[in-house]
């Protein structure tokens, strides 16, 4: 090959350093050549081959638009999430060598990992902390994609796949939560799986239940009516085999589509133009050649990804050295710790449980959130903003999404830092008082006629008012999309409305049909 020739020594008279001889011999050996199909010299051809001839780097395109290389374009969140998945798989497989998923042994295997397995504490810590970081990064990745409008055509489907990946990430983390079999674990999972029992129709304690406690959704999850041996085994299999496999399938599709649909990164106008108020779309129309400008992925992007992963690993390593993963007392199904909190990413939903019955807070709202997220690319028909922040032309979409995500994290903050024993409100700096008496007054239900009138009025006015006030908005969306958008928005604002009713008017239920377990 042409590349190799240039590597041979220039003249036989000059004595070649030993190191060079060894390197040359190795590089010219059959073994080396059988593995690496090209040289390492910095030529365009090699840059292309670097990606093309490597199955792992092949996830990338050979060339990328320069805008996608900017760190602040993606914040590296998607790539780092995937890296965390790999890191978690590796550390998780290691941990499996010392872990038995039985209620007899699970907790004590944790103690062994902590005290007797070489590097056991480090492995468990980094697994735990990486999991938290992954959940956070996947959520932030979603937000970053939203604000750059990267879900707009042609990337709608990939956004949906992304939301599915977000769900699987939650489930992976949640199933892993049970495995240490300590008090923290079983009570978080008890709270979580009892939400499943509140599913309408298919949960034994949900509205219009058609199945008993030994046939319902919780029973399928746990293989029993209580969190016990069969539940532990099920969660173990889900956590270690089933969910990672599903994740792998979807993440493959996700990455494949990123490559096929390309980064949304479009070339942006230079600063002078931007100051003049030229929109990127208009500028691009005048400069179509800009779209063709691309750079080689290797090394421009790959090196940055490498450094990003390295920095993250360093941070996680430091964190794992400094802080141990929590391990509380042995699981005791008869003793509920006070307070019992769900994993932090579900604490927002747990906080909603104060205001709504489980079927609403634990089943309907999360489902609507997920479906609503998936629907975003199909109901947001505004074509502007792809590849850059744009509030001016996306006021409605950006403000609704921002409200939702801020509300979500605010609920998490309140639930995680401001709730003490008895789920009483405390300021984050206040000490908990296990003997504090609840200040909450007696609550009452609204009469059903008033409640129904309120709900129908809220829905009706909410549905009609924007149509009358913003005719353009309705016209652009058309009736179906309009109804979907408004339903999601109205439902989202219904949550704070109910919080206000409960907190300031002591109203427990707006509508209450105890015979059907249907309370709102």
């Amino acid at each position, binding site marked *: 090959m042409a590349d190799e020739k240039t590597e041979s020594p220039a003249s036989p008279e000059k004595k070649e350093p030993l190191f060079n001889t060894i390197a040359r011999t190795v590089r010219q050996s059959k073994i080396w050549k059988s593995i690496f199909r090209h040289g390492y010299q910095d030529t365009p051809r090699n840059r292309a081959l670097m990606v093309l001839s490597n199955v792992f780097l092949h996830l990338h395109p050979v060339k990328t638009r320069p805008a996608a290389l900017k760190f602040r374009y993606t914040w590296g969140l998607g790539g780092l999430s995937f890296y965390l998945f790999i890191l978690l798989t590796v550390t998780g497989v290691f941990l499996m060598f010392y872990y038995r998923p039985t209620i007899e042994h699970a907790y004590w295997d944790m103690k062994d990992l902590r005290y007797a397995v070489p590097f056991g504490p480090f492995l468990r810590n980094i697994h735990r902390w990486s999991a938290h970081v992954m959940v956070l990064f996947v959520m932030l990745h979603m937000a970053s994609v939203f604000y750059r409008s990267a879900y707009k055509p042609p990337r709608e489907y990939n956004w949906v796949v992304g939301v599915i990946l977000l769900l699987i990430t939650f489930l992976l983390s949640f199933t892993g939560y049970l495995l240490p079999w300590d008090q923290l674990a079983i009570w978080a999972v*008890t709270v979580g799986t009892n939400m499943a029992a509140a599913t309408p129709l298919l949960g034994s304690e949900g509205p219009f239940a058609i199945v008993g406690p030994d046939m319902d959704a919780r029973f399928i999850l746990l293989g029993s009516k209580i969190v016990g041996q069969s539940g532990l085994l099920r969660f173990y299999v889900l956590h270690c085999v089933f969910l990672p496999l599903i994740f792998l399938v979807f993440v493959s599709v996700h990455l494949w589509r990123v490559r096929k649909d390309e980064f949304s990164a479009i070339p942006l106008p230079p600063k002078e133009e931007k100051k003049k108020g030229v929109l990127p779309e208009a500028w691009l129309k005048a400069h179509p050649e800009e779209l063709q400008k691309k750079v080689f992925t290797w090394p421009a992007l790959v090196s940055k990804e490498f450094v990003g992963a390295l920095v993250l690993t360093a941070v996680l390593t430091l964190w794992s050295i400094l802080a141990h993963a929590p391990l509380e007392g042995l699981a005791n199904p008869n003793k*509920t*710790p006070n*307070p*019992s909190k769900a994993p932090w990413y579900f604490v927002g939903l747990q906080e909603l449980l*104060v205001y709504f019955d*489980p079927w609403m807070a634990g089943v309907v709202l999360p489902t609507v959130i997920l479906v609503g997220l998936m629907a975003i690319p199909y109901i947001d028909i505004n074509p502007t903003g792809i590849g850059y922040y744009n509030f001016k032309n996306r006021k409605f979409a950006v403000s609704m999404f921002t409200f939702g995500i801020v509300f979500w994290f605010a609920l998490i903050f309140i639930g995680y830092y401001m709730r003490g024993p*008895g789920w009483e409100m405390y300021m984050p700096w206040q000490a908990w008082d296990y003997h504090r008496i*609840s200040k*909450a007054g007696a609550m009452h239900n609204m009469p059903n006629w008033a409640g129904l009138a309120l709900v129908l009025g809220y829905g009706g006015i909410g549905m009609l008012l924007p149509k009358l006030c913003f005719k353009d908005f309705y016209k652009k969306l058309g009736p179906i999309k309009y109804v979907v958008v408004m339903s999601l928005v109205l439902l989202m604002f219904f949550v704070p409305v109910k919080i206000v009713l409960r907190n300031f008017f002591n109203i427990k239920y707006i509508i209450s049909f105890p015979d059907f377990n249907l309370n709102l």
Partner: protein
Amino acid sequence: MSVEGTPQPATPAQTPPMAAAKPLAPAVPKGPAKSIHQIEVDETKVPNLWFTRREFLSLAAWGAVLAGLGASVLAILRFFIPQITYDPPSTFKIGKPDEYLPGEVTERLKKKYRIWVCRDSVAEGAAIYVIFARCTHLGCTPNWLEGQRKFKCPCHGSGFRRTGINFEGPAPRPLERCKVVLADDGQILVDTGTRLKNPKDWKKPDFYLKVNV
């Protein structure tokens, strides 16, 4: 239903579904092979078919495959609902009625059986009822606070009166009551597998054990 691959210019609207009952005829006229565009079709002579026998078989096969898949999904779902569990038995004896004092809530069985044995005071008739120690909100185990004479759930702060009626916090309904009867040996027999949700049924004889003081 439009059938691909057959040179039928007829739109589905022109082919009534009942046509399937008509005698089947080959769709393509026999003769030397022609390009599909060259085939001349006499509109009036087009066999008025919904689908051919071969297509019917193929459709039926697809149907069978889908039915099989559907059945497998159901079977898999059923597979995850075990017929037996290794949960502790739900029926047990808890001693004689006079071990439980009128007007008191007995916490000592909570650890083992997850129940409270409550007894009305003498003025109320001294009947015994058994409350299942599982919060109706999300299944945590509440505690009996003797000082405040109420059950309080540590998870989300639901409070229940001695009767099990919910009066504070997010719990949607009262605590459940277990079946309680007197066994032949004079001991109280509790069945935590049979529980009452609705307070209307609380005074039912199998759930409200009347004993003489």
